[in-house]
């Protein structure tokens, strides 16, 4: 599958949906790479002490993972000119061999003929929870 071009993409086009696993190891790795060592992302005892059901993923890891749907579709991570999300629900990551699943889908919701960009609206769920709100990426296409 080649890279999508601006002219070939239409409003309403769906991006291929993906399911991304997120395990405790992924959270530890992201903590190290990002420098975000908040305890709720790696310590069950302290996460539960503040009322969470278990350890939760970094919102920024969820955001970054959801973006992969767009960057892998566009074929160029540098083509993302805007990307914004609201963190609506946490991704709860149990201490087992499977972790959590993040299901991400996307649809082309707008085209800007002058900037030659498209807006992709993303939906991200984990379990039954919608974990991102108003998740939108603006991507420049060739």
């Amino acid at each position, binding site marked *: 599958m080649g890279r999508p071009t601006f002219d070939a993409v239409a409003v309403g086009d769906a991006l291929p949906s993906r399911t*991304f696993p997120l395990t405790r190891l*992924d959270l530890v*790795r*992201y903590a*190290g*790479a*990002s*420098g*975000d060592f908040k305890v709720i992302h790696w310590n069950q005892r302290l996460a539960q002490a503040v009322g969470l059901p278990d350890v939760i993923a970094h*919102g*920024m*890891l969820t*955001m*970054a*993972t959801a*973006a*992969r749907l767009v*960057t*892998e579709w566009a074929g*160029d*991570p*540098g083509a*993302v*000119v*805007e*990307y*914004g*999300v*609201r*963190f609506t629900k946490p991704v709860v990551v149990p201490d087992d061999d499977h972790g959590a699943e993040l299901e991400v889908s996307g649809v082309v919701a707008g085209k800007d003929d002058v900037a030659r960009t498209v807006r992709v609206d993303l939906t991200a769920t984990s379990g039954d929870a919608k974990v991102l709100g108003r998740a939108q*990426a603006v991507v420049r296409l060739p």
Partner: protein
Amino acid sequence: MGVNPDIAGRTYPPGPVYEVGREKIAEFARAIGSDDPVHRDPEAARALGYPDVIAPPTFAIIVAMGAEAAVVQDPESGIDYSRVVHGEERFTHHRPIVAGDRLVATVNVDGVREAGGHAMVTTRVEIASEGGEPVSTAASTIVVRGGQ
């Protein structure tokens, strides 16, 4: 207790230059599960027209977090970091962050408002090259949970 609404409108002096390394980009890409060669292989990046490996779209958070720390650590802000939850994040990229960039980040507090007993603090970090060329803007809303 509570967040000081007077910090709205403040701009904090930029911190030290953040130098973007190839290995840091590769480490961050791996941490978000991306195997895209444009984050690892300078040749692959050049094939897409970039001078060196580029960072994933959310890499800017590393630089932004460094700048936002100035607000949280400001004793006048009244922000209790242990009560902070990330509410919203938005990046605007004027161009991708590239290995070798020397970035300067300046944080502005765009707003403080109360909602449902919590304080919402919106910050905007302007990330530029050392020479002043705009690179990225990272707008963030944090929720500082009120006491029970």
